[in-house]
């Protein structure tokens, strides 16, 4: 098998697709109401910084995956334990996105179909994609991710006549605290979740472009997040937005004369699919590295099955899912997204790359 390589444009598309992920149906900054635009800008800046941190770690440890870096920098035993925690984190993240997908499809498009069937069939397709390799996933991203902003643009233009541009006022009615909380939420979901890419960055054919690629994709999400928010707030208003379950879906229902609802489904299929694939790939690859298995495809089926079961088991209902994502997820993610990566960066800067502590 030849050496796996992806181009910088493919990595950009994968990162952008991953970042769009569930954010095409959920609004992580909804807590800031009509000031969410500030939260998006602040969260985007913080998110870009986090992604730069991950890129820096990858550049200080060339041709190494997260597992290699952890074991080299933290020692074999501690590194292996932390790697197991990361494997759990990637599996958990894949399950959450699968559940978001299942809840959305079963609420809006296929209300009569059991959620386990929707999630299971989606996961089965994704296992084939993951088993085809990271190059195939990269090419798929290159082909499909451009559809996402196109769909966003179509919906924006279709609804422009119903926009009320005063919906952003008053500014900072509830102070700065909700804005900061929402900005932190956005940093952890979805920017911080790109820590999974530490299992993929090594495949970039031109490592010198890594930082540019991650910053460009963070910028792309910030810009599109801003566009989506402005579209929704101009059409629905902040009060209705804070009460709606799936805000972008509600916005599409207001387009007169034409049903563009499936376009939101398409966006979720593409971006959610990429996010789940990357997470399952990262988990399978990390587990195989730890266990000394050469081919990660041996375990993708079992891990995907576990993700499907976990996604059905993890929440009782959609309200529980939203509550957990808003109140628990940002704090649960801190060690995986901030503390351990910062520690890894410091350890990588302290020791010369390639110097083994053993």
């Amino acid at each position, binding site marked *: 098998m030849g050496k796996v390589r992806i181009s910088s444009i493919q990595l950009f598309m994968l990162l952008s697709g991953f970042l769009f992920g569930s954010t095409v149906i959920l609004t992580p900054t909804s807590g800031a109401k009509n000031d969410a635009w500030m939260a998006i800008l602040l969260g985007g800046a913080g998110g870009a910084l986090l992604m730069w941190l991950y890129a820096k770690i990858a550049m200080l440890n060339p041709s190494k995956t997260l597992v290699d870096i952890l074991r080299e920098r933290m020692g074999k035993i501690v590194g292996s334990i932390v790697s197991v925690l990361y494997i759990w984190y990637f599996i958990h993240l894949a399950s959450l996105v699968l559940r978001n997908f299942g809840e959305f499809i079963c609420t809006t498009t296929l209300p009569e179909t059991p959620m386990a069937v929707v999630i299971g069939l989606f996961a089965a397709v994704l296992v084939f994609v993951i088993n085809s390799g990271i190059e195939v996933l990269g090419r798929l991203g290159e082909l499909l991710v451009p559809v996402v902003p196109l769909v966003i643009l179509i919906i924006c233009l279709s609804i422009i006549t119903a926009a009320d541009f005063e919906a952003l006022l008053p500014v900072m009615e509830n102070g700065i605290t909700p804005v900061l909380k929402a900005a932190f939420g956005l940093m952890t979901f979805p920017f911080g979740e790109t820590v999974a890419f530490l299992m993929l960055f090594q495949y970039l054919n031109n490592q010198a472009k890594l930082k540019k690629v991650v910053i460009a994709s963070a910028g792309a999400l910030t810009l599109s997040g801003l566009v989506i928010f402005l579209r929704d707030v101009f059409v629905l208003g902040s009060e209705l937005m804070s009460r709606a379950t799936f805000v972008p879906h509600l916005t599409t229902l207001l387009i007169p004369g034409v049903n563009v609802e499936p376009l939101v489904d398409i966006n979720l299929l593409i971006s959610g699919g990429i996010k789940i694939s990357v997470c399952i790939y990262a988990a399978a690859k990390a587990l195989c590295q730890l266990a000394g298995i050469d081919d990660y495809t*041996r375990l993708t089926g*079992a891990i995907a099955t576990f993700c499907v079961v976990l996604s059905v*088991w993890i929440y009782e209902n959609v309200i529980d899912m939203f509550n957990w994502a808003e*109140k628990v997820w940002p704090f649960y993610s801190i060690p995986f997204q901030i503390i351990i990566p910062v520690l890894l960066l410091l350890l990588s800067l302290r020791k010369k790359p390639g110097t083994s502590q053993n």
Partner: protein
Amino acid sequence: MTQMIKVLAVFVVLILYDLQRFIRKKEKGVVFVLYFLFMGVSLAVSMLLAAGVKLPSPARWIESTLRMIGVIK
């Protein structure tokens, strides 16, 4: 009961499909161990959920742990 049989049938198909691949390629023991660990846990949880047993989910465990150490109120 019907639900449990359906779940069991799906798992039997998945395991048989993977197992014949593993045997043909003479996989290492560790592959079997990890595979059956994931599939075993998945099957056990699915059967319990299909039987209507309310299991405390990992989301609740994580939430209680974070509450216990005072990270969330």
